C-alpha cells in the first residue's frame, strides 16, 4: 500500500523533474554557475630550501613540479585555478625585500593547462619564506564571486618573516567572511612547522597534511582541488547585535558572523502561528583554546522570557562546538494573527590560551529554518492503537467478560419472557 503510494509519488516527482528540465533551458543555468564557480589558488614555496633532495631521492622542487603537472591535468572543468609563488625571485639577504617576495605565477581564471605547465617549469628555488604576505595576496587573488574559495599552501619551512604571524593572517582572512578555506601541506616537516601549518589550517577550517613522498603530494592536492569543485552553500555574512532591540532580523538561511570572547550576539526571527523555528549554531575554535568550553543558544521573547535553549559543552581538541533549538509556535484560529518576534541569544564560554590574540572574534555559523506546521499529534500511537501481550490479554479478558454478561442477560431475558 505504502509502496504503491511511494511509487506513484516517485513517478509524479520524475515527471515534475522532466518538466522542469524542459521548462528551464540550459542557458539560464550557465549564467548562474559563473558567479558560483569554485576558485582555487595554489601557493607554492619556492624558497632556497626547496633544493633539498629528500623526497623519493629527488629535490622537493622537482616533486612539487611533478605533482603540479599531474594536478593541472586532473583539474575538473569549471574550477578556476591560479598559482602563486613565495620566495621565487629575491635571492638576497635583505629581510625586508625578501619578505615581500610573492608573485602571481598564473592568474586565477579559466585554466589553460599548457600555459600553466610552462609557468610551473620556470620555477627555481631561490629566496625567503614569506607565508603571511603570500596568504594575504592569495586572498586578494580569489576575491569576487560567490563560489567556494580555497588556498592550498605547499611549504617546506616555517615562516621566516616574523613578527607577522601567518596564523593571525589566516584568522584575519577568515574574519572577512568571504568563505575562504586554507589547506596546508608540509614537505618533510619538523615539529615547529607542523604546529604553524596546522594552526593556519585550523584558523580557516582547512586541513593540514605532512608529505614525505611525491605521490602523496599529488593525491592530496588533487583531493583538495576536487573538494573545491563540490557545490556548497555559501553563507551570508550578518552582524548580530548586542541586544535584542539592536539585532538584525533573519529569514531562513545560512549565516556567518563573529563573536568576541565573553560577548553576546543577538538575532531576531519572525515566527508566525503554525510555524516552527529551527536554529542551529556552531562556533569554531580557530585558535589555541583552553581545553574546556561551552555554548548556549537561547530563544527568548522580546520581553525577555526564555522559551527554549540549546546548550553544549565540551573538552579537548575540537574544531567547533555546536548546538541548536526548535520552537514550534502553536496554531492560531485567527488567520491574521501577527508573527512573533523571537530573539536568539548566543553566548560562548571559550577562553583563549595564554598569549593568543582575542581579536577578531570566533567564527559563528548560524542556520535558521522557519518551517510550516508545528508538531501535530497524528501518528498511530495517538489513534489509540496499542501493542504487546498485555494489550492482547486485556482485550481477550474483557471480550470474554462481555460475552458472559451478554449471555446471562439474554438468558435472563428469555426466562422473563417465558414466565410472562
Amino acid at each position: 500500500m505504502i509502496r504503491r503510494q511511494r511509487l506513484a509519488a516517485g513517478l509524479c516527482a520524475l515527471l515534475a523533474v522532466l518538466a522542469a528540465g524542459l521548462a528551464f533551458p540550459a542557458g539560464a543555468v550557465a549564467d548562474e554557475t559563473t558567479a558560483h564557480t569554485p576558485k582555487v589558488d595554489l601557493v607554492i614555496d619556492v624558497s632556497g630550501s626547496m633544493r633539498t633532495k629528500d623526497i623519493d631521492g629527488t629535490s622537493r622542487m622537482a616533486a612539487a613540479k611533478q605533482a603540479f603537472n599531474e594536478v593541472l591535468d586532473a583539474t575538473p572543468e569549471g574550477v578556476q585555478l591560479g598559482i602563486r609563488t613565495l620566495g621565487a625571485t629575491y635571492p638576497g639577504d635583505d629581510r625586508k625585500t625578501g619578505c615581500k617576495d610573492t608573485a602571481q605565477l598564473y592568474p586565477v581564471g579559466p585554466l589553460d593547462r599548457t600555459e600553466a605547465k610552462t609557468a610551473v617549469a620556470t620555477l627555481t628555488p631561490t629566496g625567503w619564506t614569506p607565508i603571511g604576505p603570500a596568504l594575504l595576496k592569495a586572498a586578494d587573488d580569489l576575491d569576487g564571486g560567490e563560489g567556494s574559495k580555497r588556498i592550498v599552501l605547499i611549504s617546506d619551512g616555517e615562516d621566516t618573516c616574523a613578527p607577522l604571524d601567518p596564523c593571525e593572517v589566516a584568522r584575519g582572512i577568515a574574519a572577512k567572511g568571504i568563505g575562504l578555506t586554507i589547506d596546508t601541506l608540509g614537505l618533510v616537516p619538523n615539529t615547529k612547522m607542523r604546529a604553524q601549518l596546522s594552526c593556519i589550517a585550523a584558523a580557516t577550517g582547512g586541513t593540514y597534511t605532512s608529505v614525505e613522498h611525491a605521490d602523496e603530494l599529488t593525491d592530496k592536492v588533487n583531493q583538495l582541488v576536487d573538494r573545491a569543485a563540490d557545490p556548497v552553500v555559501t553563507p551570508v555574512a550578518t552582524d548580530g547585535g548586542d541586544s535584542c532591540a539592536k539585532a538584525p532580523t533573519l529569514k531562513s538561511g545560512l549565516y556567518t558572523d563573529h563573536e568576541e570572547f565573553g560577548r553576546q550576539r543577538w538575532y531576531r526571527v519572525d515566527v508566525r502561528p503554525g510555524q516552527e523555528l529551527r536554529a542551529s549554531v556552531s562556533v569554531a575554535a580557530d585558535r589555541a583554546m583552553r581545553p574546556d568550553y561551552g555554548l548556549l543558544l537561547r530563544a527568548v521573547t522580546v520581553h525577555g522570557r526564555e522559551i527554549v535553549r540549546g546548550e553544549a559543552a565540551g573538552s579537548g581538541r575540537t574544531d567547533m562546538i555546536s548546538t541548536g533549538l526548535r520552537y514550534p509556535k502553536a496554531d492560531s484560529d485567527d488567520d491574521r494573527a501577527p508573527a512573533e518576534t523571537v530573539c536568539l541569544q548566543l553566548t560562548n564560554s571559550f577562553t583563549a590560551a595564554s598569549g593568543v590574540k582575542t581579536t577578531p572574534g570566533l567564527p559563528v555559523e548560524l542556520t535558521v529554518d522557519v518551517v510550516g506546521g508545528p508538531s501535530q499529534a497524528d501518528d498511530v500511537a495517538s489513534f489509540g492503537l496499542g501493542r504487546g501481550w498485555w494489550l492482547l490479554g486485556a482485550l481477550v479478558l474483557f471480550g470474554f467478560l462481555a460475552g458472559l454478561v451478554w449471555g446471562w442477560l439474554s438468558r435472563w431475558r428469555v426466562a422473563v419472557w417465558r414466565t410472562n
Partner: protein
Amino acid sequence: MRITRVLGAALLTLGLAAGPAAADSSPSDSSPPGSTPSPSASDGASAPTSAGTSFRTATEIAQGKTATASASTGDYLYWSFPADVGRRPTVRATVKLPRSHAAQTWQVDVYDGLRRRQACQYGAQTRTVEPGTGSVELACVLRTVRAWSQPWANDPLPGTYYVRLTAVDVRTADLGQPVGARVRVESKDIGGPAAVDGRLAKPLVPGVAARTQAETDGKSEQSAEPAALSGTEPDGGWSSGWWSDRWVWTAIGAALAALAGIGGYALTRGSGRPSRMPSQGS
C-alpha cells in the same frame, strides 16, 4: 443465533488469516518498505570515497554503505546520513593509523539535524591507542529515533544526522600523517514500541526552509545543481508515520476479544438445547 455463528466463523477466519502476518511482524521487525538496507547495496561503487571537513561540507552517505576517506591525522571528518522514525542507528568507524605514531585518542561524535550532540547508548565512542597500533575501531549506538519530542528535550528526531570523526588527543609531531577512515551506518528497526504521541511537521533536515523558499521564488534554475545544506533522504523517502505494527497488534487483539466474547456467550448457554425446555413445553 445464526448471525452469531456466521460472525464467529468470519472472525475466526480473520484471526487465522491475521495470525501468520502478525507472527511475521509483531515481535520486532515490521520493516517499513525501503528502509532496510538491501544486501546488494553494501560496498557498492557509489559509496563515497571522501569526507567533508565541516557540517556544511559533510559527505552524504546512505545507510548500509561503507564510506571511505583518506585523510590526515588531526583532520575533522564529517559525514551525514538520514535516520527515520523507529530506527536505532549504529555508527561504526575504523581508522587505519600510520606505521609509527605516539599514543592517540580517537573519537566519533554524532550530531542531529539541529547540530545537537547525540548521546551514544553503547559502543566505544572514544578510544586511546598505544603507540604503533595499526587501527582503531569506534562505534556509537544511538537512541531510537522518535517521531516527536518536546522542544525542550534532546531526543533523537527523524532527519539528518552528522558523524564527526577525529583525533581528540594527538601530539603535534603526529599531525598531518596519512590515515584511512571507513565509516558505516546501519540501523535496527525498533518499530511500534518506539511509537510516541505525535509527529514532526517536517524531518530535521537543515536548510529545508531555505530550499523550499528558493523553489517558490521561482529560482528553481539555481537548484539545477543544488548546493543544499543537506539533501539526504532515506531510500524510499521519509516515512509518513501512519504505519506501525500497532495496527496488527490491535487488530489481532480485537479479533481475539471477539472470539473470547463468543466463547463467554456460549458458556452461558451450555451445549445443545436447554434441558428444561421439554418439561416446560408439555
